[in-house]
């Protein structure tokens, strides 16, 4: 049985259990039918439902982005969309991508599936709450879509007052939708923290947790500490529109810059909610595909916590030009640079892990390596933005747009793709077409850079963001960027195609196609309903690739009296 009290157990009857490559039963075959899915408390099914929802929203968000880019092929106002529609496009694109895609993507979709498996638990601590979070997410989404259907939204994803207190669009409904969504995020965070504290398998000490778990732990802490502030900010914004409370509305005596503090107090940490889980995936993929112990386990584990903590104190770097006091501006700038150090440590630790490894360039690894390249660019340009005098020039230009696409799309989303390809066999029990996978990753890499590199240039040349029209000088950059976004679309469609294809036509996936040592690979693909046939026992560190696989396939023998040949006594 799973227990957190593992340290108390002095010796256990353990036995090697080699997972079958051809399980007869798994969580997909056991509880079937729409109703079973909708009422399931199984973290794996909930994870898959999140994944489907996130993909759906990503397709919508991406479609809006492509529309928007198509408009920007020309800088004139004679176009198939007018200025108000354009404003709604980028607002909805940004809001959907941030609140509906990136925040839940890795933790709630992949994390839900993988976290209990990696801990050797049967489920998360509060399975019903987990299902509840999913429904809260769906309800939030429905609200938002009602809003879009009603009047749209044109405030930008940042909802700055006083524009948002007076805009004629459905600000109220959307904020309410996002408010509901916030609870989903808070509850998931609470659930994960409790799970990690209480449901680790026997022998799974903090020092033996996979780095992905550490990353999810840091993420959950940020979610619990930051999201409530977003919630109260949105409540104030809603009350602003319903009751005219005016705390943020200058027309009523409030202070609009205060809103920016409140908003960024959540939204800067939120960017770490998005990127830290991506770091978790990176650690898993890089070790697996270089068959090598991670370099600097504790540095990577604890730097996530450091990023989480310092990340809370830098929000004002979005407000350098806002009229915030020079003292605050200086302090925020200083702290901003400190975030770069732990992040840099991670990047370099992964590089060092590659050194003398046994590297196989399968699709997940290709994504992981492009992450290293692209995210570094995103991070370095973050440093540019943190530098006071330079940010005064590039703030609210396409330079910022390029920066955050490099970190969010090039960082998180590419890590998500890495994770998705990595765990696809575990989740679905099917292998995708490797060749198409490689082509897909190349298209994404090329398309991405073609789309967003030109934006750095035009941004520092002075092209402001959220512009429906632009002066001729910027046309070449915009055109290049739009072409890039078409390449990206082709790439994503290809990925969508071969992944779906694999569901029906794919080869059966073995239990451990990549030869990983992690716990989730020591059960069948897909896993059984309760994850493991036998509660796993952990004796090695998670990335001990120099030890034989047998030592990772241990479980507590159910019938302790019976003495089979394989039974060994292990000190834990």
């Amino acid at each position: 049985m799973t227990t957190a009290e593992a340290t108390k157990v002095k010796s256990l009857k353990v036995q090697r259990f080699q997972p079958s490559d051809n399980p007869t039963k798994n969580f997909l075959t056991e509880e079937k039918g729409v109703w079973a899915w909708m009422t399931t408390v199984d973290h794996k099914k909930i994870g898959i439902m999140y994944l489907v929802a996130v993909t759906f929203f990503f397709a919508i968000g991406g479609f809006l982005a492509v529309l928007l880019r198509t408009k920007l092929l020309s800088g004139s106002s004679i176009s198939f969309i007018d200025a108000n529609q354009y404003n709604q496009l980028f607002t909805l694109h940004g809001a959907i991508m941030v609140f509906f895609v990136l925040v839940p993507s890795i933790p709630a979709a992949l994390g839900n599936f993988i976290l209990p498996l990696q801990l050797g638990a049967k489920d998360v601590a509060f399975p019903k709450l987990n299902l509840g979070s999913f429904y809260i997410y769906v309800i939030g989404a429905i609200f938002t879509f009602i809003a879009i259907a009603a009047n749209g939204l044109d405030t930008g994803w940042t909802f700055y007052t006083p524009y948002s207190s007076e805009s004629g669009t459905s600000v109220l409904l959307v904020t309410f939708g996002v408010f509901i969504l916030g609870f989903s995020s808070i509850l998931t965070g609470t659930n994960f923290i409790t799970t990690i504290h209480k449901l680790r398998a026997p022998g799974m000490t903090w020092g033996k947790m996979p780095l992905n778990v550490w990353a999810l732990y840091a993420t959950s802490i940020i979610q619990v500490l930051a999201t409530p502030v977003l919630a109260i900010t949105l409540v104030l914004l809603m009350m602003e529109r319903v009751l005219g409370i005016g705390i943020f509305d200058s027309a009523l005596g409030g202070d609009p810059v205060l809103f920016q503090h409140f908003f960024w107090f959540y939204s800067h940490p939120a960017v770490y909610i998005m990127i830290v889980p991506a770091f978790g995936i990176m650690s898993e993929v890089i070790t697996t595909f270089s068959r090598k112990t991670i370099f600097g386990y504790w540095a990577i584990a604890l730097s996530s916590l450091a990023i989480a903590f310092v990340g809370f104190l830098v929000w004002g770097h979005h407000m350098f030009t806002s009229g915030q006091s020079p003292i605050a501006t200086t302090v925020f700038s200083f702290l901003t640079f400190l975030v770069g150090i732990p992040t840099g440590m991670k990047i370099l630790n992964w590089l060092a892990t590659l050194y003398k490894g046994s590297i196989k360039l399968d699709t997940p690894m290709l994504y992981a390596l492009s992450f290293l390249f692209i995210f570094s660019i995103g991070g370095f340009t973050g440093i540019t933005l943190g530098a006071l005098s330079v940010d005064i020039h590039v703030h609210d230009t396409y330079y910022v747009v390029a920066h955050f696409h490099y970190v969010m799309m090039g960082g998180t989303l590419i890590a998500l793709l890495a994770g998705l390809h990595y765990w696809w066999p575990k989740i679905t029990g099917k292998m995708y077409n490797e060749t198409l996978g490689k082509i897909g990753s190349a298209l994404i890499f090329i398309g991405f850079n073609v789309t967003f590199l030109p934006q750095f240039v035009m941004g520092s040349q002075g092209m402001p963001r959220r512009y429906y029209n632009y002066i001729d000088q910027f046309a070449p950059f915009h055109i290049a960027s739009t072409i890039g976004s078409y390449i990206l679309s082709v790439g994503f469609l290809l990925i969508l195609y071969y992944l779906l294809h694999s569901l029906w036509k794919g080869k059966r996936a073995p239990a451990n196609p990549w030869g990983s040592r992690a716990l989730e690979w020591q059960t069948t693909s897909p896993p059984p309903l309760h994850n493991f046939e036998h509660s796993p026992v952990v004796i090695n560190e998670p990335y001990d690739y120099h030890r034989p696989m047998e030592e990772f396939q241990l479980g507590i023998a159910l019938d302790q009296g019976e003495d089979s040949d394989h039974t060994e006594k292990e000190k834990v």
Partner: protein
Amino acid sequence: MNTSAHDHHISTVKQLFLVAMGLTFLTFLTVFMAKVIVLPEPFGIIVALTIALAKAFLVGAFFMNLYWDTKFHVLLLVGSFLFFFLMVGVTLLDTLYRDDAIPSF
């Protein structure tokens, strides 16, 4: 993680009652300090908040059982307070030091 959940603390009626009395006393004290002995600012608010913190301590330690609970739960409560102060403190860095205070209108 070794949590000492196996011996749940059960408070006696007397303990609980004393805590409630303590809280009542502090409530009267804080009203007395504010309305009868009116201290000049900032001392008034300092006294009021000190009393409030003392009350919070009583509620947290004895009603919420933190006195007997695992340290981690204490950390969560204290941590979230510290965190709140951090958030307020840094925001005040802006709002108190704007070179051009809000014009009156």
